[in-house]
């Protein structure tokens, strides 16, 4: 039997507002427990929610980015259930009328073809707090700092057919929210969380029963969890069993999914419109102003990079993977006046150095202006590409601008033909045997043999002689 996998994702993106969605408390990560929870977040009697308009603007921005319908009227509803980290006994979310309706994104498959993936909806809601089960000796601690943090829940259509597609979609959404500046995308801190609805069916058949996978806090775990869940479901069905609708938790340590709760145990959330909040009525002007202020999105930027800078599709994709990297590249290219050279350096030496040091782009010791300034010196022949690597290392070590390093270390390229000629003459004089061999060799072998003399000249000049001039002079004299 040929099986087909069907996957839909629910992504919770934490919106990068400074304060919470219904209160003025800070959303900053990592504070002492319960120091960022005000009376509203604590659910004290009589306090009331007031909607953070910035969260609304961010949701609209996302909707515009995925070409979705923005609801002129959306409604907050209460999702009722009891849990100690849910202070009010209900979560304020959107149910029947979400702010963002149907939209779509395109993902690139491994063979380079593009596949559209539908977004069913995206809605605003508040996060719950955290239950801390360790450190309390048989008790549970509750930290409500996170309670009331704004989330955008993005629900996809069941359009993905493999774990790889699911990852490509998740990465695409991750890229978009970061480009828009509405989410920091930090998966470790939980700013970007994925749940996957996974089912299998005989190819072309009706949809199978799905399991919802939770606790997928990296793209790698997302892929891994889906693959083992698909295997589990196929084994189960082929063994004569049936998949039951349930929520399953992915355990990365054991590399397995296990049942958390079944459909029967699921809560009846008793959704109803929250009477404390008015419906969100958006006027067309606001949506238009968001549309007018939209930043360039990843797909558009990638196409522009390929077109305007003459980069390959692959290079353009690498450089636009994050907005930060794209901005870095563009600034470096502008300063250097050579986009291809900048692209090679940003993807090569620069990214390599970041990786090696384990640094994020924002932590880079070399700014885009600095890198561009150094590249400019390659372009204007002040230094060679090889010397540039030394300069780059020195810049990385914090020795200042490229010009300062070149000056301080005397790395300026020798372009004075008289000076180079003297070195060339000395090298030829010191190696009569090789000169004779060269002259007796046939044309085909000569280029390789020329390398010896170039190497000697560069060595004598400590790498500073202009390689092109060295070549020309050697050819002339030999």
């Amino acid at each position, binding site marked *: 039997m040929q099986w087909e996998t069907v996957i839909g994702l629910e992504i919770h993106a934490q919106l990068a507002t400074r304060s919470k969605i219904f209160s003025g408390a800070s959303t900053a990560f990592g504070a002492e427990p319960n120091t960022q929870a005000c009376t509203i977040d604590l659910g*004290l009697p009589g*306090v*009331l929610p007031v909607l953070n308009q910035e969260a609304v603007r961010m949701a609209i921005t996302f909707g515009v980015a995925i070409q979705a319908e923005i609801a002129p009227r959306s409604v907050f509803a209460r999702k009722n259930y009891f849990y100690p980290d849910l202070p009010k*006994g209900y979560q304020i979310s959107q149910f029947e009328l979400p702010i963002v309706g149907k939209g779509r994104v395109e993902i690139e498959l491994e063979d380079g073809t593009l596949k559209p993936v539908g977004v069913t909806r995206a809605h605003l809601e508040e996060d719950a707090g955290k239950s801390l089960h360790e450190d309390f000796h048989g008790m549970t601690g509750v930290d409500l700092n996170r309670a009331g943090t704004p989330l955008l829940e993005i629900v996809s259509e069941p359009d993905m057919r493999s774990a790889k597609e699911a990852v490509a979609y998740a990465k695409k959404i991750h890229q978009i929210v970061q480009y828009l500046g509405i989410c920091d995308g930090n998966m470790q801190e939980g700013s970007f969380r994925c749940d996957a609805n996974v089912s299998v069916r005989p190819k072309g058949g009706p949809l199978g029963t799905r399991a919802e996978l939770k606790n997928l806090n990296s793209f790698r775990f997302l892929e891994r969890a889906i693959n083992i869940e698909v295997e589990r479901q196929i084994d189960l069905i082929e063994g004569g069993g049936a998949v039951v609708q349930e929520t399953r938790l992915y355990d990365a340590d054991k590399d397995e999914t296990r049942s958390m709760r079944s459909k029967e145990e699921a809560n009846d959330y*008793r959704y109803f419109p929250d*009477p*404390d909040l008015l419906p969100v009525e958006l006027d067309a002007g606001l949506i238009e102003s968001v549309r007018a202020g939209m930043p360039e999105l990843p797909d558009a930027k990638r196409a522009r990079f390929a077109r305007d800078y003459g980069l390959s599709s692959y290079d353009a994709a690498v450089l636009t993977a994050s907005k930060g990297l794209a901005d870095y590249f563009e600034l470096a290219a502008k300063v250097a006046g050579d986009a291809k050279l900048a692209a090679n350096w940003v993807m090569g030496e620069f990214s390599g150095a970041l990786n090696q040091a384990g640094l994020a782009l924002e932590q880079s010791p070399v700014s885009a202006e600095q890198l561009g300034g150094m590249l400019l010196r390659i372009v204007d022949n002040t230094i060679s590409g090889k010397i540039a690597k030394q300069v780059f290392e020195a810049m990385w070590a914090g020795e200042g601008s490229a010009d300062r390093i070149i000056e301080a270390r005397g790395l300026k390229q020798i372009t004075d033909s008289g000076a180079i000629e003297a070195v060339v003459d000395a090298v030829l004089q010191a190696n009569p045997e090789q000169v004779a061999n060269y002259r007796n060799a046939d044309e085909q072998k000569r280029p390789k043999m020329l390398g010896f003399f170039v190497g000697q000249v560069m060595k004598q000049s400590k790498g500073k002689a202009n390689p092109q001039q060295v070549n020309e002079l050697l050819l002339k004299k030999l």
Partner: protein
Amino acid sequence: MHNKSISELAHGLRTGEFTSVELTRVHLDRIASHNPTLNCLVSVCEEGALQEAELADRRLRAGDVGQLAGIPIVHKDIFCTDGVKTSCGSRMLDNFIAPYDAHVVSRLKQAGVVMLGKANMDEFAMGSSNENSFYGPVHNPWQAGAVPGGSSGGSAAAVAARLCVAATGTDTGGSIRQPAAFCGITGLKPTYGRVSRYGMVAFASSLDQGGPMARSAADAAALLQVMAGFDGRDSTSAEQPVPDYSATLNDDLKGLRIGVPKEYLGEGLEAAIADSIQAALGEFVRQGAELVDISLPNTHLGVPTYYVVAPAECSSNLSRFDGVRYGYRCSEPRDLEDLYKRSRGEGFGAEVKRRIMIGTYALSAGYYDAYYLKAQKIRHLISDDFRAAFEQVDVIMGPTAPSTAFGIGEKSADPVTMYLSDIYTIAVNLAGLPGMSVPVRPVNGMPVGLQLIGNYFQEARLLNVAHQLQQATNWHSATPAGFE
């Protein structure tokens, strides 16, 4: 001193005839002698009140001419008060002290009022008799053994017994107007959104509204003047200018069109009460008003609709009382479920639990459309009845309640009979309109309330109409025996 109106008291305080401390002491003394029998206050803030009175006296000496400066009042115990227990009439909040003032409380505090204490009430404002209080029933000053009405029964009784000059109340289905009627005082439920709900413990958020309870329309106007107005902390608060409520009190009523709904004067209303209402209507006719027969055809749907919407909202609003962060927690919970079940089971009274059950049921999957959604649709029909009526008339009048105050224990065994005591008041909440109750001719020595219903944000008109009645009659100034 305790029989004076707010304007008389304000004059006396400004002119130095007496001080706020003296005025406050008079009321504290009355509380000390009468509260043990009436049980209308659950907290008495003697020390705090005297401090506030001293502060008010300083402000008065410094020329603070605010009409409420130095006036002693009580707050219904549903309004959060910084540093003073806010129990909401429940064991659940018997240990709860809010770290903030409700909007209404802070506005009145800024105006210089003196808080004498917190008033007893039906638990979480659920009730029509004040029998559903963890702190026991309140007695009606007009007749020991009779209920004061509810849920703002403590406030109404305290005002009627002259233990305070005025009080705050809240009204979700009649909780200001019905006790005002039973206790012979003047109570106003403003338009939904007129008074901020911030810091008012929620019962049914789409219906709850705070308002003044006082001995006259003029006093109620003075209180509302301070309580009303936009508050950014309540998303349902209205951004409507607040008119000068006192300025229009004396407008004459010539040509006023009074709608009298036939549904309010028919079956179920005691004949003697109908006569009292007619007597009051006659007074308005004498003043030049015109009576118009109208119909509010969906009136009979008010109580059933209310008992879906209000419990549904309360079932969710009261979920926060879970024994985890504050309030009552059962002893030695075995596990989380036990903590929830026993904390809520022991912390809430029977009526509250009944309504949580009804509301939970009404919102459940499979029942939502049949109950909650249907009720919301009927709510629109009820609003439409009023909308149509206000195209013909300026105010609507009828009885506040179908009977006078009944005996403690008389209806408590039968919740539905109890629910029907709010039959005339509930529709006003469902529509979000302002409503008022003013005393008219008593029946067998017990107060009767005339209900005035206005169009949206027409509180000034209601106060004006009520004031004109009170200028021409003295029903509102009757004092229960023993409390003169």
